[in-house]
């Protein structure tokens, strides 16, 4: 697949607004890992679960939290049921469960067109199963690790907690990480390793790993000039799916770059109040420590070199005018979507850069990547991120609190792999967008 030559060939078109909308601010919408539903965290203390097939409300989860629900995360890899974690400004996290056979049925019925929301009995509903408290103030974000073993929560109390579910509803606090000096805005897990990242009001991102029973900070990323609102890892093995997938005829230099990237593993993207989206990369370890942890080397040996070095690979084209609250890194296409206070949605794509011998890019624009980043810059500059789509005032005059990619599931779906963008706004609306080639 040849890289797109013209950057702005794509438009962002409205597909649907999830209905009915919430009458107050909505914070975040998280697609279910397997089913075509999405959960929206609302400031009216509810979670709304909408269908991504019909774009209508399936369930309202109410009655648990005393204040705004700020974040929602689906537990991955659960069989037979859906498990949702909610993080609230009331400083607690809730765990909710629903029998998934019921949910699958709903979806079938719904597909068959005979879904009637009012039919829903108690047993179909999400049931509160336990509360996790310990944080001192508002929970800002929470996230299950890819294995579902751990749940990370973070709060205005400046701490990041890691919980482990030993058995159903028996959670243990296994770490309380106090490295940040300010409100912690977001937590995210590495897709392949038990590596946790957190972003904070103190302008830093911190990474943590377990070292002989103790979770410790293994890296600190210090590059944003203001609050870091969002942190998200790249998907696993994206080099098979994004611009790197096409390997034939790559120059030696480019082939080397792909190899280096694979050694680094999934990258990290952050968005900030300083209006920038930045990509960070791990410096591959001599003799690749990743493999050693996979081989289950004893802790003692691992702890010798548990520290990691992350460096800034690039800054994405800066086209946001205000704080960027959220970004989403597609696990299917490798594209990044970002949104925030300025009401804009931007979509970026990475591609090989056509470098002229004098270092000026083919299109004559100036390279945005930081020149003071460490080694790897030389490689990083082989690629560039371009804005492929831009949408103004997606939620009218309102701020966009969250944006994410989701698998397209409605009848109009054009391919198995097609994705939609879901934006969640201050206006209480959750909108679904499709990308149209112009």
């Amino acid at each position, binding site marked *: 697949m040849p890289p797109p030559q013209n950057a702005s060939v794509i438009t962002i078109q409205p597909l649907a607004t999830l209905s009915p909308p919430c009458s107050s601010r909505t914070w975040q919408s998280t697609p279910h890992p397997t089913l075509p539903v999405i959960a929206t965290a609302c400031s009216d203390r509810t979670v709304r679960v909408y269908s991504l097939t019909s774009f209508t409300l399936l369930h309202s989860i109410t009655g648990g939290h005393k204040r705004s629900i700020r974040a929602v995360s689906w537990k991955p890899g659960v069989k037979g049921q859906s498990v949702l974690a909610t993080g609230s400004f009331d400083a607690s996290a809730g765990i909710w469960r629903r029998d998934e056979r019921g949910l699958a049925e709903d979806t079938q019925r719904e597909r068959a067109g005979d879904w009637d929301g009012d039919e829903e009995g108690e047993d179909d509903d999400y049931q509160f199963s336990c509360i996790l408290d310990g944080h001192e*103030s508002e929970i800002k974000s929470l996230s299950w690790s890819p294995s579902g073993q751990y749940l990370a929560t973070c709060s205005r109390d400046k701490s990041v907690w890691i919980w482990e579910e*030993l058995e159903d*509803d028996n959670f243990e606090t296994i770490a309380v990480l*106090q490295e940040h000096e300010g409100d912690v805005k977001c937590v995210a897990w590495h897709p392949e390793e038990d590596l946790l990242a957190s972003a904070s009001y103190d302008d830093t991102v911190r990474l943590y790993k377990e070292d002989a029973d103790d979770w410790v900070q293994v890296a600190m990323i210090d590059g944003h000039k203001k609050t870091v609102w969002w942190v998200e890892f790249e998907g696993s093995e994206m080099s098979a799916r994004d611009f790197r997938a096409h390997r034939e005829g790559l120059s030696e230099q480019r082939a080397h770059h792909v190899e280096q990237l694979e050694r680094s593993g999934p990258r990290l993207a952050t968005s900030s109040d300083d209006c920038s989206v930045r990509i960070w990369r791990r410096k591959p370890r001599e003799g690749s420590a990743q493999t050693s942890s996979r081989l289950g080397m004893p802790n003692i040996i691992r702890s010798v070199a*548990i520290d990691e070095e992350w460096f800034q690979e690039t800054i994405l084209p800066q086209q946001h005018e205000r704080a960027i609250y959220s970004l989403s890194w597609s696990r299917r296409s490798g594209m990044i979507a970002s949104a925030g206070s300025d009401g804009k949605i931007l979509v970026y794509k990475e591609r090989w850069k056509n470098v002229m011998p004098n270092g000026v890019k083919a299109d004559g624009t100036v390279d945005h990547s930081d020149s003071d980043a460490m080694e790897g810059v030389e490689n990083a500059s082989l690629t560039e991120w371009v804005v492929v789509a831009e949408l103004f005032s997606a939620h009218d005059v309102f701020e966009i609190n969250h944006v994410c990619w989701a698998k397209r599931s409605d009848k109009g779906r054009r391919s198995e792999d097609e994705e939609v963008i879901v934006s969640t706004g201050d206006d209480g609306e959750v909108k679904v967008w499709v990308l149209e080639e112009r």
Partner: protein
Amino acid sequence: MSAILSADDLNDFISPGVACIKPIETLPEDKSNAYEVTTEDKVAASQPPPPAQISLTDCLACSGCVTSAEAVLVSLQSHTEVLTTLDTHRSLHTPWLAHSGTNGTKHACNGTHNGANGHHCGEGKLFVASVSPHTRASLAAVFSISEAEAGNMIAQLLSGPLGLKNGGAHGSDFTWVIDTNVVREACLVAAANEVVTALSPEASSTPLTAGSEGAIDTTPKKPILTSACPGWICYAEKTHPFLLPHLSRLKSPQALTGTLIKSVLSQRYNIPPSQIWHLAIMPCFDKKLEASRSELTSAAWLPHHSSSQDPVRDVDCVITARELLHLAAARNIAFSSLPRTPLPSSQRTPFPDPKIDAFLFPPTRRKNKDPIAGSSGGYLYHILQTYQAQHPGSSISVSRGRNADVVEYSLVRNSETIVKMARFYGFRNIQNLVRRLKPAKISKMPGARVGRSRKPGANGAAGGEGVKEYAYVEVMACPGGCTNGGGQVKVTEVEEVRAAEGIKAVNGDVVVARPGPKEQKEWLGRVDEAYFSGSGSDSEEEKVDRDGDWGMKDVDAPTTNGSSVPGADVVSGISRTHIWNLLSHWSDTTGVEIPKLLYTSYRKVESDVGKKKQSDVERVAGLASSLGGGW
């Protein structure tokens, strides 16, 4: 003056959260002390809220648990405060020998009058220091010496000829340097007694009335939780008041030392508590907070205390190992050059009461011998051994929990488990303990639709029942226990401290430039090693058998809380009879009942999330000026 600490260590702390407020009693002003008044008044006068400099989160890892007001109280206890007090007051070494009343005989200020700094000669004070074994262990590791040597050096600094007495406005120094391990023995015996009594079938289960949950005269509920760690107590009071009925009522060794000294000297020897200045040298900042508790003042034990009297704290000031080094540096004393030998006993001022003197200054040192007892005083282990003594043929089994800071102990005989206890150190483990002790109704989300198949409390699954089975849980806020307290010399500071003292790392002890978690663990291991370094050839020779001297008499078990524990008298080298003899002697001397001396109380502290942020600031401002830097 050395700046290693003053500047750096404040930055180590996380500034306090605004979510909680703990009512702070204002403490007596001491008008004779002019120092720092200006500074504190400035703080009070300034418009923006004063940045709270120290919070205790270093230990507790919990930002919300210290209010700005507390942070101010705590920051007033510093090595500067020690210097100021020494410079303001002459030391009275034997005020009980003076016949002219409480002010002592000497009226002239000795030493030069330091006009430049406005030093005035205040009334004389009797300076007393108590030193925790953890502080000694920390310094021992830094200077690659034994814990005993570190103790000798501290004594040399505080009362020796080459120490503090050489400088300052009045050449003031400390009359006594007490090892808190000595007083800890009384705590251990009392703790065992408390648990055995509270959990015995005969224990009257007084129904708790609302509001009396943490009162001094209530019996704690199973599992009884250690009260010696102020970081933990502070957290429990503010965040989990449902735990108050479980807290041991026993004072910590630091507090008990203060009560002992001040009550005996004031009740028997007519030296007012305000004339005794008690400094404690402790492993953490939280101990400063403990020292400022209103429950731990003369008001709690003075028999005729009236509300018009200003309560005097049992511990006036707490400093840590690092601050002790600063204290020395501020007087241009190189700590490492102090003699490592004990002060000659001929120069010792005996405590006026011979029995208490014998208790406080035993001829042999108290050692922390047994690593199995843990690094935080060995409460659990002593209690367990007490049970063991009652059950001949039983044995103790120890199993490590999920991490090194969770350890379960059980006493078994044949296949019967007699009693189970556990150790939970560190904030994350405390979380798990607390969650399992939480009554189900609290953990339920009101109004939420609850799964039919599930228990509402949810967390009550496997782990929960186990925790409720424990008779006693030794809870400490610091991972690794008190040897890892927030005021200990940290691995990152070792180099700096050594450089400042002009010494090199000894015997291949390399401290790496950027210490990671691994180095930290190794360092902690060294401190632990120093803490337990008492173990060795003379293991069981530590007992101080002075029955004869003490004029053994049969102690009537005090009606409410006396020793009613059957079984062998000597547990782990500590004779219960001795301790109870001493306690009743103390009670007789002062006319205060034993429970009033030994126990303390706790109270629920209301959090006011989002309600009165302003009041926090006002409170700090008001507090700072009313204190006037008084202590």
